[in-house]
């Protein structure tokens, strides 16, 4: 029940809805008491021969009006209570989502997208259930159950009521127990299903191996065995699930038998009428749901509590990187001084960077080369302020980058990552990502700069082509160029290309670099690349090796140096020859 208190803030916020909704529920439970009573009265009047047509009409009108009132009340409590529950899930989902957008990259490194999804769907669902079904079962079991029992005891016969209620706790205990058991077995059934899913996934991924060894039949046999397990585990669920109805029927049959047996005795003794008996047995029928609800209540609330805790835990995570108090509210511009003595990624003992010092003047282009793991990306991640906790300083426009507001720092930087992530929307929207309201010409301009305009114009839908699973699948090179256009459209003070020309052919690469050179005269550019042709024309090239700078200079200087850079350069020239079929 704790979760109901923890959700107190929401109930308070929805005070009106919940109080009217609960009032409606109460009205229904009270009105429900009328029909059995009226049936009983009419029966008694008939047996006694005292029924008059006006009396009958009066009762029927009351019944009819009660029916209509119940219809209205039932409609409104659903809208008010279930509606509030849906609102809660909407509120929680939004809270969680907004929280996600504020989390630092390290948050996403530690958690899998699938798990976060599960919180945003399953857990929120369970909380919604608590605020809807949970409240309903609580009110119904206590109010409806209470009213019905009270009416039976007060207006008919309290002794018979007590007798009839004897078997009911058995039903509550049993159904609540089944509920728990069901949940457990259901989990096993889900596991079996997910095994079957994994098996299918595996067979399809390994289809070549299976075909090669001609083992399709055997694999089908394997699948059959797993699907047998699915059947078994589901049957175990069914064995419990099928207990609910018979248990309810059985327990109420005992109740009915007891009440007729003792009811007859009371009638003989003159303590009760036949009409009372009929009303009593109808009331008994009304008790089925509230008693069942009582059993459900515990399971719903238990699940809701666990889910709510998980969501709260997630919401309590604070972002690693925050604006410092009094952060500079201006866009950094100017020279960049990168002075890192040492930097380690969190949870890593090895230094990702050590003694990396360079200065980049505004308007210059710098190339960073080196093998995977040599520290290229680490430099960029620090510039983007994705990580902190380094020894040294990064000064941009005269101030350390952590003195700026994060949003303002990012305003200066146009970042094109290695893993070009496009959103499943139109190409135009992908390019105009930083400013959806930008003029179409600007979009085309940026696309032209990134040499993707012609490709896009070639699509039947042009810039309205949807990207991704539900749309056109672009080649790696096209995706890279779209992400470059996306960064260029914001005319960034500092453009960072993180190996983002790797899938583009040599000629296009050259053209893109040329147009960057033409248009970005006053701004700074940093390019990392495996392919040296991408950085050949940079004002300054640094060669990274095992986390530190081993060579610095222009292309010509580095070639003359005849060191690592020269070695890489020669190898790549040869590689190009081979790619072109040897006739370079």
């Amino acid at each position, binding site marked *: 029940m704790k979760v109901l208190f923890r959700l107190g803030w929401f109930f308070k916020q929805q005070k009106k809805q919940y109080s009217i909704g609960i009032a409606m529920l109460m009205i229904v439970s009270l009105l429900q008491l009328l029909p059995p009573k*009226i*049936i009983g009265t009419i029966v008694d009047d*008939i047996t006694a021969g005292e*029924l008059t*047509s006006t009396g*009958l009409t009066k009762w*029927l009108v009351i*019944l009819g009006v009660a*029916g209509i009132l*119940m*219809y209205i009340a039932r409609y409104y409590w*659903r809208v008010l209570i279930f*509606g509030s529950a*849906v609102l809660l899930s909407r509120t929680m989902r*939004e809270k969680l989502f907004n929280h996600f*957008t*504020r989390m630092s990259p390290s948050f*996403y490194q530690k958690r899998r997208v699938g798990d976060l*999804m599960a919180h945003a*769907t399953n857990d929120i669902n369970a909380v919604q259930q608590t605020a809807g079904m949970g409240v309903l079962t609580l009110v119904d079991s206590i109010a409806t159950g209470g009213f019905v029992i009270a009416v039976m005891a007060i207006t008919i016969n309290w002794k018979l009521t007590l007798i009839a209620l004897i078997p009911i706790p058995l039903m509550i205990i049993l159904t609540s127990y089944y509920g728990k058991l069901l949940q457990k077995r259901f989990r096993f059934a889900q596991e079996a*299903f997910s095994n079957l*899913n994994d098996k*299918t996934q*595996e067979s*399809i*991924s390994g*289809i*070549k*191996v299976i*075909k*090669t*060894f*001609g*083992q*399709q039949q055997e694999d089908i046999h394997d*699948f059959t065995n797993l*699907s047998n397990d*699915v*059947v078994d585990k589901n*049957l175990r669920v*069914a*064995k419990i699930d099928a207990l609910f109805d*018979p248990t309810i029927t059985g327990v109420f*049959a005992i109740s009915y*038998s007891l009440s007729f047996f003792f009811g007859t005795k009371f*009638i003989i003794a003159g303590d009760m009428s036949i009409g009372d*008996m*009929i009303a009593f047995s109808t009331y008994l*029928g009304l008790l089925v749901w509230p008693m069942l609800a009582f059993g459900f209540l515990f399971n719903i609330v238990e699940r809701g509590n666990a889910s709510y805790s998980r969501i709260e835990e997630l919401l309590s995570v604070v972002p690693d990187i925050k604006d410092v108090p009094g952060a500079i509210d201006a866009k950094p511009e100017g020279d960049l001084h990168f002075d890192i003595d040492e930097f380690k990624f969190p949870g890593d003992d090895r230094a990702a960077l050590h003694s990396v010092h360079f200065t980049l003047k505004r308007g210059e282009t710098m190339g960073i080369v080196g093998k995977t793991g040599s520290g290229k990306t680490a430099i960029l991640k620090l510039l*983007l302020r994705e990580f902190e906790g380094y020894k040294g300083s990064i000064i941009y426009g005269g101030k350390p980058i952590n003195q700026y507001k994060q949003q303002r720092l*990012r305003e200066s930087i146009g*970042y094109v*990552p290695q893993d070009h992530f496009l*959103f499943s929307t139109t190409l135009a929207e992908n390019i105009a990502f*930083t400013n959806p309201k930008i003029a179409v010409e600007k979009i085309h301009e940026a696309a032209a700069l990134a040499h993707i305009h012609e490709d896009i114009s070639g699509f039947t839908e042009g810039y309205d082509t949807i990207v991704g699973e*539900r749309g056109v699948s672009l080649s790696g090179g096209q995706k890279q160029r779209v992400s470059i256009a996306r960064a260029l459209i914001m005319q960034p003070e500092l453009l960072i290309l993180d190996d983002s020309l790797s899938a583009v052919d040599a000629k296009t690469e050259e053209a893109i670099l040329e147009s960057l050179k033409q248009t970005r005269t006053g701004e700074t550019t940093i390019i990392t690349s495996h392919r040296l042709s991408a950085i050949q024309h940079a004002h300054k090239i640094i060669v990274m090796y095992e986390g530190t700078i081993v060579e610095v200079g222009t292309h010509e200087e580095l070639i003359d140096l005849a060191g690592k850079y020269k070695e890489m350069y020669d*190898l790549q020239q040869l590689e190009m*020859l*081979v790619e072109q*079929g040897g006739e370079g």
Partner: protein
Amino acid sequence: MQVDKQPKLTGKDQWVVLKRLLCYAIPHKKSISFAMLLLILTIVGSIAGPLLIQLFIDDYLTPLRFPKNEVLTIALIFIGIQVFIVVVSYFQLLRFQRIALKIIQQMRIDVFSKVQGLGMRYFDKTPAGSIVSRVTNDTEAIKEMFVSVIVTFLQAIFVILGVYIALFALNVKMAFMSLLLLPLILIIVVIYRKYSADFYQDIRERLSQLNAKIAESLSGMGMVQAFRQEDRLEAEFSAINEKHYRAGMRNIKFDGILLGPAIDLFYAGAIVFVLGYFGFLSLESPVEVGVLYAFITLIGRLFQPIQQVMQRLSIFQQAIVAASRVFKLMDDSDMEPEQQEIEHAEVQDGEIEFRDVTFSYDGKTDVLKNISFTAKAGETVALVGHTGSGKSSIINLLMRFYEYEKGDIFIDGVSLKAYPKAELRKKTGLVLQDPFLFYGDIESNIRLHDQGMSSEEVRAAAEFVQANEFIEKLPASYAQKVTERGSTFSSGQRQLVAFARTVATNPKILVLDEATANIDTETEVAIQASLEKMRKGRTTIAIAHRLSTIQDAELILVLHKGEIVERGSHQELIVQKGLYHKMYLLQNGILEDVIE
């Protein structure tokens, strides 16, 4: 997140799908009949209860006459019936579940078998996730229909029948009038069905949009933050969330108007009606109050199954859509290449000849152009070339993964197409570039599904390829668990296991796609040694990325854009100073004299 488009089905399409679905129930005819019998028995029992009470009220309670034996008999029958219902209904519920599960199992096996028989072309054009969805998720949606919808439908029909039979037995005139209820109920069900289909579809779509948005945002959060679009994203999400909320509210209101409360209103109306009828009748002639009681109780029993049917209509709708997708896969004609078998065709020596083979995946661009070469029995032919040069396509054709139209491939002078499939599979062994390990343990990964292979044979195969060295160092040795495609093993180790797996079947022809991934030097040595051993006495077609591994090949084919541009032994090709020579220099890091 994979979002499958919902095919739009006309009423007729739905009917065809439903009929085909129900065909799956035919093998369970007997079992279903028995379960139906149990269902009918429980319904009869549940109707007999109120009738007995009616009898008791009218014949004994009203006149206050209690002959011991008669009353005792009625009580015993009542209790007997209740016990009977409790027991029988349990088994009836269980039996229907079992049948439904069995039906779905059969369907799953059928889909899975179909998938196994499909050609590689199908797997190229269909994302794995969507195939998996067909086999598991879609069939799960159909299961819901068999488990909950069909039984509920049957139950509703029988209950309605049973209740009316009882009503007619009690009071013909009143029963006739109660028949009026049926068209009213039917109308509400039809209206509900008409609109609920749209509403449920709407909320499902909103939900999938919502989930897709969350999933995409979580994966692309880095980009969103780098470009400071958090606020816009939140606004977009908020809009989708809002729409989902509105759809949810609409559903609650709609269900509130037509579902639960409406059914209760009908019940209240029915009570007014019954009471009015009997009440006014009693003013003229005596009525049996027991009959009145029975009418009210029995009519009450009508409404519960109808409400259940209405609640489950959407499950039904979903199941039909899912089934139509499943059947579409089952009707796919992109099957494995067919063999035109010559009986008893057997691979003897394993000489392979490609004669003028031209091949295209899409029917437009040829990825292989007039490929001709011969691999003599026991010799090794190496294929080298850049990515996309056509090396893998040669292997794909040789393995019969794809059908070729132009030219032919011969083994021992007989066309590849003439061998029985099993013979080809037995005599050719393929080692893939990225060796695929299955969930299980090392031993099961070497043996695969061949239960006839003894543990000794498994070990012998592992020893032959020198995989035993690393395997025996594992904590559980051959019983070491393999999870998630063997991600806990290095790619070199996986390669060795794949070698052992292939050697264990002792093929005549060996097809190797050398691993490109980084392999640690220690395993590299073992791999080279075992490759050499494996190739002895076998005709080998090998794709080589590291030229050092194929220097002793009898024939090296250099491919470029689907054509063989150079051919010869290592020495011959080096002397030619062509493409192969350059590749060789590149790999050895020898740079002098090449670039000018």
